[in-house]
């Protein structure tokens, strides 16, 4: 397949990943998500559909009030005691992607913007989750909530459609829209937040954490362009802030080192703070294939499930 790229990240041996830039050229999110997810699944040796409701979890002693249909009669026959079988109740989980579409996301130095990347990521995740027959939903926000697709088993196409016509416009804020959303998600589910997190780590964590309050599982993707991480500019130029429009004369060579260390410290702080509040945090470089992100998501899910 010509679309297949030659990336071969050592983290996932055997997986075949597609260059996000190539994917971006496809344009059709549905196709993209399918291509990625199918390729990804094919590459995995483990079955992807874990969490099915038939999975046995554990036995526990019968207490009055338990449904007698759940009594394990085989165990009763062996032990003459009543035990009730418990299963993983993962079916029909709510899954929502919260996507930051602020102006700063509209930046890309390698042919695709962070928003494009996030869009594909969303499509892929939605597709993946839809395959599991979970309910998918979608929220786009900048300084307020811009788009909202409630989670539903039938909303896969809607989500892809909404994703397709997203336009970045306004400066972004995390706190207000996410706090609003935290109140909205009543039912437990999985929430994926995708943003570039241009705010203090404290502010970010403070904005994101309430999403967990109702028992939601929270996965955070921090999307950054390689230029934002490496700061590989060479010419002295006026740098213009995409959101505020403010300009600043910058000699990149002179300040690269300091910039990098600041970004590194920011990422480290986010990582640490999120791990403190038990939120999955993943830094995504838009030059890296999407599969990497999917793998991180799934592996984290798996970890979560094992923990239960």
């Amino acid at each position, binding site marked *: 397949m010509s679309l297949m790229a030659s990336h071969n990240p050592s983290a996932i041996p055997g997986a075949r990943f597609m260059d996000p830039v190539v994917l971006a050229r496809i344009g059709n999110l549905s196709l993209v998500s399918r291509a990625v997810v199918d390729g990804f699944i094919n590459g995995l040796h483990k079955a992807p559909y874990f969490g099915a409701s038939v999975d046995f979890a554990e036995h526990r002693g019968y207490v009055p009030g338990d449904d007698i249909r759940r009594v394990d009669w085989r165990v009763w026959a062996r032990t003459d005691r009543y035990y009730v079988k418990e299963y993983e109740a993962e079916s029909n989980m709510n899954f929502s992607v919260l996507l930051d579409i602020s102006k700063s*996301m509209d930046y890309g130095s390698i042919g695709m913007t962070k928003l494009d990347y996030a869009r594909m990521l969303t499509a892929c995740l939605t597709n993946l989750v839809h395959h599991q027959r979970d309910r998918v939903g979608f929220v786009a926000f900048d300084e307020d909530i811009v788009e909202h697709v409630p989670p539903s088993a039938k909303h896969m196409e809607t989500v892809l459609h909404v994703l397709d016509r997203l336009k970045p416009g306004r400066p972004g804020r995390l706190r207000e829209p996410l706090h609003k959303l935290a109140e909205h998600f009543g039912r437990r589910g999985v929430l994926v937040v995708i943003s570039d997190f241009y705010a203090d780590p404290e502010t970010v964590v403070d904005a994101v954490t309430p999403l967990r309050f109702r028992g939601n599982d929270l996965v955070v993707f921090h999307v950054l362009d390689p230029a934002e991480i490496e700061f590989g500019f060479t*010419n*002295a130029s006026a*740098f*213009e802030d*995409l959101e505020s429009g403010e300009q600043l004369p910058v000699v990149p060579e*002179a*300040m690269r080192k300091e910039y990098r260390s*600041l970004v590194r410290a920011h990422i480290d702080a986010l990582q640490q703070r999120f791990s403190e509040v038990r939120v999955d945090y993943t830094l995504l470089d838009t030059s890296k294939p999407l599969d990497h992100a999917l793998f991180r998501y799934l592996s984290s899910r798996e970890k979560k499930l094992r923990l239960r």
Partner: protein
Amino acid sequence: MSFLAPLFFAALAALAIPVLIHLIQREKKQVVRFPSLMFVQRVPYKSVRRRRIHNWLLLCVRLTALALIVLAFARPFLRRDTLNTAVGAGAREVVVLLDDSYSLAYGDHWERARAAASNAINGLGPDDRGSLVLFGSGAEIALRSAASGDRPRLAAAVAAARPGASATRYAPALKVAGSILAESSLPRREVVLISDFQRGGWRGEEGARLPEGTTVTPVAIAGGADAPNVAVTGVSLARSTFSNQERVAVTAVAVNRGTRALRGGQLSLEIGGRPIQSKPLDVEVNGSVSVVFDPVTVAGAFMRGSVRASDDALAVDNAFHFVVSPAQPVRVIVVDRGATGGGALYLTRALAIGEAPRFETVVRQPDAVAEDDLRRASVVLLNDVAVPAALARRLQRFVEGGGGLLVALGPRASWSPDVDVLPAAIEAPVDRTRGDAARLGTLEFGHPGFEPFRAPRSGDFAAARIYGYRAVKPAADAQVLARFDGGAPALVERRVGAGKVLLWASSLDLSWSDFPLKPVYLPFVHRAARHLASYSEPAPWLTVGQVLDASAGAARSQPASGVVLTPSGRRVSMDEEGAEVIELAEQGFYELRNRSGDAVTAVVASNVDTAESDLTPMDPKEIVAAATAGPGGGREAGGSGQPVTPETQERSQRLWWYVLCLGILLLGADTVISNRLSKS
């Protein structure tokens, strides 16, 4: 260091161009849109800005090259004194200016001045050269640029100097000193100015400028005697005639410029060297007294008189000399047609009135003019006569010999065309009896004959009505002094030989005009006669410093030659060509004698300039500042400099060339450096 074209430094603003290119231009050219400046802003801004310049070496080389090129265009040059300071002390050229005006004879001033001069000479080093300049109203180089071996000659020149009779003038002395210093090749130049610094001797700068870097050391000789200082500043002579003898009354003015009043002094009048009258003299400090002596009979020509005050601190100005001679009349011959016409009446009457000078008139008919008459006369007036050719030729010789001829034309006037003396050719009469009479239109007021009428209301020539005149055609070398209102020449003058000829185109009697009846007639005739006779009032005295030419005292200008006997008895022979003049340097009587030396042709009294007896001093710094062109140009003490020749001037300004070369070399280095940088 100074700059010939400092305005070029405005181009230093160009230095900002490379910096601006580095700092501003490149930023504006490229705008990078970036998601967030959150981290960029945290990097300290100043360090960003400062480090924006990539290569300090390159920038410095560029800026230095530009600055050097601008500096070269500003034409830097080293001032001479700066150069000399760098050279350090060297041999000196010292000019000692010693004031020998007569005011130095006051009290002990002369001894002190001489001691100061000796000090200056003794202070000369082995490599120094010294000059001695004695100055009064003029300056005389006693010894020029004497080396150390000539030191005794310098001392001898100082010892031999005596105060003269002249007044003080600083400017000529400074000019002489300037010329000596300018020719000197020694590195340090000094002027020692020894004088009593009288205020009267300095009349501003007068162009006396010493070479740049000259040190002027003024030595003021002042104070000392506390005594009256009486000066006889002038006499006035009032002539009168008493029983056919001419007498003169002398009035003398004495001034006391000393610090103490004079009491019980004497003022005496001497004639021919013998005191004949004496008057008591009391003068207050800064006061003046005029003393009138009794009239004295003028015995003969060149009577020498002196007014002398009794001795005081400054003796030179106590005497005042003058020469009185009997008044000499101007002899005029009026040539007229005779008793029948009577036209000369107005002329003779007008000439009889004059006193200064007195005119002695004789009337002759054209055929009766004797040779003796012409020899004695100074002026001949031809009043409307037909001049025979013989008389015309004699008159031509008379004029060429220095005589004056006035020709008044009337209906009868004629002149022999062979004799070219008249300033204009005489043509036909013009009749203006009908209609308006002719009047005098334009006058040449610059001419001595019309000079007194120049001022407004000082004579109305236009009032005279001219009913007839002769048309004349002026000669090429003649000057038209007056014209009639129609533009025809009225008065024409021509110089022939040593004499002058005036031609009046109308008559000077009533036959053709009423001019003789007008008030301007008399002064016009007098001025014309004086002018033609070249009459000038003989001055009773001259002042030291003025020049005496050999024609002084002669009634008619004659070829000057002879011998001059100075008051000190020195004989000076004068050149035959009359080109030589003698400057009066002594006080007393100068006698002019003929070549054989046995007859006195003139006596001239010479007096000192009495302004010099005013000893009021001035601040020597004023002279120093003016001579050295202000505080920047020279110094009162310290170093000195070489004479500034055009070559040295050019050499001191050639600095720009090297600066420009260095700038261009740096530009080359800049190219090399930037090439290497771009390669790396």
